[in-house]
């Protein structure tokens, strides 16, 4: 092997991060993981020295994130998605085919050290189910008849966003399979809002007047959040783009990032101007390889055009997550950027005063920010032309499962669930159940197709918008399996900090396994309620507080699923 192609030494790998402190821990770990296939003791010690972090903490961080491994792995890692939609669409067959082809079981590495086969909780490719990730390239749908092809994906094979809808505001581009270039974005009015150089107060005023609220799940009014951060006295301030999108059934942010990265960038730059922040972090889900490459290129373009950089007075840095759903929770995300395990913080204090690095921070979802350029450019009234008073504007809905054309659909708030399914080509088969709002959302039956999708209507129906994910299961699907997959997801993704969720996600999964296998003990149904309500009521963060929603709502709607002797109901 010539020295040019020899793998880089630890010193070479760590040179870019040397002396930059703990915040560079995840980037350094990514570099070592990629080059060496794992992060061993020697590498961890070198990283600890380079970044001035205790080696125990380096190990603790490696252990937290699913994409890092303290143990040697194969040259390549194959991750088979086991989210509820992929599972209902043949994930098991794909895993079996790969396992047979490679001659290893899940969790094992081939004897030649080439391939490690793993099951993964969710890959965020639900519209292309069943999905597989080979290193950082996605293959979806993966064909169990051709395992060899699954192992060698090409860039052309990579799944691209499928986008449609009844309005095209956030999705006003022509081709979702190609990232809209800076030139095309500008030709459509892009960056004009930024170039207007409006005073900060005016930007905040327009966003407030538009009624825009957060699209990450908590539905907090965006303008108010910006106002709080703008008024916070401490400096410096930060804007964080939450692009961690890891909720099963949710893939709308990926569509935006891959098709229109500049809209997200411009929204974040407007937020930075509104609160006088000089630094923007984009925290991108680690599994989103294509979005990462596209975003890097877009950032380059924006820098060349002078929107980002010293003369613009604002810097943008992309940080990659490393496989932890909880890092989408805003304070866990800050911890992650700071180079720590993704443990959510206690709130208050809130991010607008004590966010990233303890400084005033605006953190917004990708879709929230992508709506901002339109609002600032065209004005709040133009935005309010869609939707209702309380839920104004257009909205992206990721629709997956049993519909004719799974994809991301843009529609005004107020569209009914049934109309939304029609946008996606209509249900395939007869609708049995819909999981609304992501894995953290609630189950509804076909009678809910009339419900208008707005904050107020969903609240009145005892539901929540959540991530706006719509997962459709027809009468052919085994709902018990779906519930097991959801419960397993939360058990895998609980950070382990607080007791109700650390213990409850595990017990919920075990109870369901027992109940569905017909091995229930007399008290198990009552225990399932106790565990579910305790997580909902007493957990520290939103992960635990929503980990029982799907199970408890299914139990209310379809009690027979949980009864003994109805295994074939």
């Amino acid at each position: 092997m010539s020295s040019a192609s020899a793998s880089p030494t630890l010193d070479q790998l760590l040179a870019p991060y040397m002396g930059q402190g703990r915040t560079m821990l995840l980037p350094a770990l990514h570099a070592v993981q990629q080059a060496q296939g794992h992060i061993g003791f020697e590498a961890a010690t070198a990283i600890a020295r380079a970044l001035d972090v205790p080696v125990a903490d380096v190990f603790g961080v490696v252990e937290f994130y699913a994409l890092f491994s303290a143990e040697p792995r194969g040259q390549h890692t194959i991750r088979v998605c086991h989210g509820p939609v992929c599972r209902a669409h043949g994930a098991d067959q794909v895993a079996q085919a790969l396992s047979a082809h490679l001659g290893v079981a899940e969790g094992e590495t081939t004897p030649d050290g080439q391939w490690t086969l793993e099951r993964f909780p969710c890959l965020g490719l639900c519209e292309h189910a069943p999905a597989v990730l080979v290193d950082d390239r996605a293959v979806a749908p993966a064909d169990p008849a051709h395992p060899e092809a699954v192992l060698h994906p090409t860039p052309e094979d990579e799944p691209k966003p499928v986008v449609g809808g009844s309005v095209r505001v956030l999705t006003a581009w022509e081709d979702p399979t190609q990232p809209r270039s800076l030139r095309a974005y500008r030709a459509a009015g892009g960056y004009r809002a930024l170039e207007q150089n409006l005073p900060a107060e005016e930007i905040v005023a327009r966003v407030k007047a538009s009624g825009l609220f957060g699209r990450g799940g908590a539905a907090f009014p965006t303008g108010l959040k910006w106002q709080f951060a703008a008024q916070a006295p401490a400096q410096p301030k930060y804007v964080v783009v939450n692009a961690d999108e890891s909720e099963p059934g949710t893939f709308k942010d990926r569509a935006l990032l891959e098709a229109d990265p500049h809209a997200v960038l411009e929204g974040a730059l407007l937020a930075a101007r509104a609160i006088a922040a000089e630094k923007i972090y984009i925290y991108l889900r680690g599994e989103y390889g294509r979005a990462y490459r596209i975003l890097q290129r877009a950032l380059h373009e924006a820098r060349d055009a002078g929107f980002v950089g010293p003369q613009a007075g604002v810097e943008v840095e992309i940080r990659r997550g490393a496989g932890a759903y909880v890092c989408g929770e805003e304070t866990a995300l800050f911890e992650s950027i700071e180079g720590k395990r993704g443990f959510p913080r206690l709130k208050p204090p809130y991010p607008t005063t004590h966010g990233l690095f303890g400084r005033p921070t605006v953190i917004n979802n990708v879709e929230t920010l992508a709506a901002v350029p339109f609002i600032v450019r065209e004005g709040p009234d133009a935005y309010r032309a869609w939707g209702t008073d309380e839920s104004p504007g257009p909205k992206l809905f990721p629709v997956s499962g049993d519909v004719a054309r799974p994809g991301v659909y843009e529609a005004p708030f107020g569209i009914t669930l049934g109309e939304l399914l029609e946008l996606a080509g209509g249900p395939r088969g007869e609708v049995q159940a819909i999981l609304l709002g992501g894995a953290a959302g609630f189950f509804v039956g076909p009678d809910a197709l009339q419900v208008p999708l707005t904050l107020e209507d969903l609240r009145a129906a005892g539901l929540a918008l959540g991530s706006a994910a719509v997962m459709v299961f027809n009468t052919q699907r085994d709902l018990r399996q779906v519930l097991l997959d959801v419960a397993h997801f939360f058990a895998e993704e609980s950070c382990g900090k607080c007791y109700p969720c650390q213990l409850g996600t595990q017990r919920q999964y075990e109870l369901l396994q027992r109940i569905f296998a017909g091995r229930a003990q007399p008290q198990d149904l009552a225990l399932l309620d106790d565990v579910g309500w305790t997580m909902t009521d007493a957990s520290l963060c939103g992960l635990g507080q929503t980990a029982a929603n799907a199970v408890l709502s299914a139990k209310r709607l379809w009690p027979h699923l949980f009864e003994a002797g109805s295994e074939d109901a």
Partner: protein
Amino acid sequence: MADTVRLTIDGQEVTVPAGSTLLQAAQAAGREVPTLCYHEALTPPGLCRLCVVEVDGARTLQAACVTEARDGAVVHTRSPRVERARRTTLAMLASATNLDEAPQLQAYLQDYAADPAAFGPVARREYPLIDDNPMYVRDYSQCVLCWRCVQACATDAQYVFALTFAGRGFHTRISTAYGVSMPESPCVFCGQCVAVCPTGALKPRRTFLLEQGYTPEQLAHYAAVDHDAVHPPATHYAGQV
């Protein structure tokens, strides 16, 4: 700003200094609120959630140890919601972890009629005892993941950073970097972690050996022949690593 706040706890009005926690306010009202991870000398991590109370108007229960007492708040320390959360959390904890040497937790289990056996055969966190240094032994089968030892070893006291977490979720465990033995770690054997541990997970090696049936005389004898301290035959107790 007023320097006191008035609130109602279980129907009783109390006045406490502004900035007090609900835990302090409840104690001022003479109400007992169970705690586990909370330790006066350490940063409260607010994670065990045993101290949760119901505050009128709040969507979820609030951890009393880290929630500020607000003027006019109406707080219930043993409402049905509180009872259910504490009972279930305690039962789940005892179904996962050996609490035999945690008398305070045993008392809570009784008080809340928590029944760990109701969970039947479920995964438990069982690990071999680690006896790798002369000062203390570690039995993580008794660890409740309260974070106290990690905090004491890190920025709450020692700045030694010998301890961290491995795994996550239910399978989280306290560990050194890559599981190296305590003498190979930066540990300075200050004993702070042992002092703050609320269960039998961390205990002085001498205590442990006495429990195993050694007499003080035997231990003195071993200490005399082996200046590393005491090294009785390893075969004497099970589960040694």
